[in-house]
């Protein structure tokens, strides 16, 4: 068996091992050194950042956590950066979710990103956790006309009518911005279809920014920028946005060191690079094998024909 044949029939576990090394080694190195790659923000991330940056102080922002712990590796950094940016902008944050398994994630994000940054915020006045509602896009349709019908209480069981910051919230149009971090169905696509689209061309269209996984990004590209003012695509989008948010926070708090916990996405770009390089390498090797073997079989059959 020639080298090429052996390479072609390689046990896929060697590929697995290479991938494990390509990701794990950079993580250890970066973890020990704290190094990061510089980020050059792309257009969709910049648009996201600018949409939030343009919010006035006290803007009402609905933040839907539509993901589960399984995709948190990709999406939690976005949720964190969004939350910190909102804290920085002194926005009023209304958290909710349409994914049952996201309820603990909301509490964690609020605690880790909003309250550590500004500990004097008051629940019910500056931020609220409205919890989970079953019903997928059905919920979206209902909150488009009557928010409190779908969310009669918050996650702590308090009536939404009794929460100070819920005063004046009638439906999704009452919010200055809707933020969605989504991993699948129901997610950003449904938010565009059922919440944003019906308001297009009618007075004040709803503003939406979304953080999405790499796999759903291609489907959402057509909605940007008319139906979606911003989009963070995959961990790269998260890293770019995180970088911009950190710059703003650094500028606002000179001399205060930035906790490294807030560079999660940027840290993950290094394993990302090596993973991608491995993939590219594999594709090149795969094709080299293919072409070499094709030439061999052609010259082989030519020889047979001559004989």
């Amino acid at each position, binding site marked *: 068996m020639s080298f090429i044949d052996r390479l072609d029939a390689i046990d896929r576990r060697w590929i697995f091992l290479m*991938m494990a090394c390509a990701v794990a080694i950079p993580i250890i190195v970066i973890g020990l050194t704290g190094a990061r790659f510089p980020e050059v923000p792309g*257009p969709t991330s910049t648009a996201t950042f600018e949409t939030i940056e343009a919010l006035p102080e006290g803007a009402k922002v609905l933040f839907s956590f539509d993901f589960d712990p*399984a995709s948190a590796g990709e999406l939690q950094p976005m949720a964190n950066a969004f939350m910190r940016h909102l804290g920085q902008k002194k926005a009023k944050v209304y958290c909710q979710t349409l994914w049952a398994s996201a309820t603990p994630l909301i509490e964690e994000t609020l605690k880790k990103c909003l309250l550590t940054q500004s500990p004097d915020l008051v629940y019910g006045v500056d931020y609220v956790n409205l919890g989970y509602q079953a019903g997928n896009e059905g919920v979206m349709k209902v909150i488009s006309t009557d928010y409190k019908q779908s969310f009669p209480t918050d996650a*702590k069981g308090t009536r939404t009518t009794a929460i100070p910051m819920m005063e004046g919230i009638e439906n999704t149009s009452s919010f200055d911005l809707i933020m969605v971090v989504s991993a699948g169905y129901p997610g950003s696509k449904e938010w565009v279809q059922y919440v944003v689209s019906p308001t297009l061309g009618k007075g004040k269209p709803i503003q939406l920014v979304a953080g999405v996984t790499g796999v759903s990004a*291609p489907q959402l590209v057509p909605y940007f920028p008319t139906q979606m003012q911003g989009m963070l695509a995959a961990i790269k989008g998260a890293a770019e946005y995180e970088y911009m948010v950190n710059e703003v926070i650094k500028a606002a708090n000179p001399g205060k060191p930035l906790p490294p916990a807030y560079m999660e996405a940027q840290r993950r770009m290094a394993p990302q*690079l090596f993973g991608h390089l491995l993939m590219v390498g594999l594709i090149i090797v795969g094709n080299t094998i293919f072409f070499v073997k094709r030439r061999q079989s052609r010259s082989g059959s030519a020889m047979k024909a001559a004989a």
Partner: protein
Amino acid sequence: MSRQLAIIVTLVAGVLMVVSGFIKPTQGWGEDAAEWFNILAAMAFVLGAANLAKVHLSKISSRDAGWGFSAVTLLAFAVTLAVGLFKVGVNPMPAFPDVPMSGGKDAEGSAFWWVYTYVLSSITATMFSLLAFYVASAAFRAFRAKNTEATLLLVAAFIVLLGRTFAGVVLTGWIPADSDWAFLRFENLSTTIFEVFASAGNRAIIIGIALGVAATSLKIILGIDRSYMGSGD
């Protein structure tokens, strides 16, 4: 008898839902139906749970190969169900201290939360992350320029892979961003692929799917296709 009734129910329910899209007083029916569906699905869990218990109990009682794992499944199932149903370790909500069961089922510190955080989340996230390995082996095998179609698949993937990391910036960063050739930079090429080719391809697929769904729904409503209720042909 039930089957005949079922066909009528399908027809009536389907037609009502179509109508509710167009007539004002019936507009909310779709949402109601969705809510009813959720209730039905939640009740149907009893069927699933009963079946799960039946399958694993029979494996254990007949000492099938791997019956020990069936015992693990049943134990995990029973424990999770019990701690969730009785809200073990859940404190009341501060607004209602007199109602012990008022706290959220997955409040931090509760037993259900523990199972969720340390068992469910870690296993599901790890299963999901296996994809990092599978994309690599699938790409190695499938992305070979065997014919025009495969070549296009390969080239598009290649450009996007490079365009989304630092490597792409390094490789084509020398092309000035404001020159006429700027579109050849990897990040711009991958954007073009998405805006033009992927967008067109997706639209064609989506339009086709919409027609497929329309025809399928119509066949179901009219009772032409009813294999889901066991009276196929």
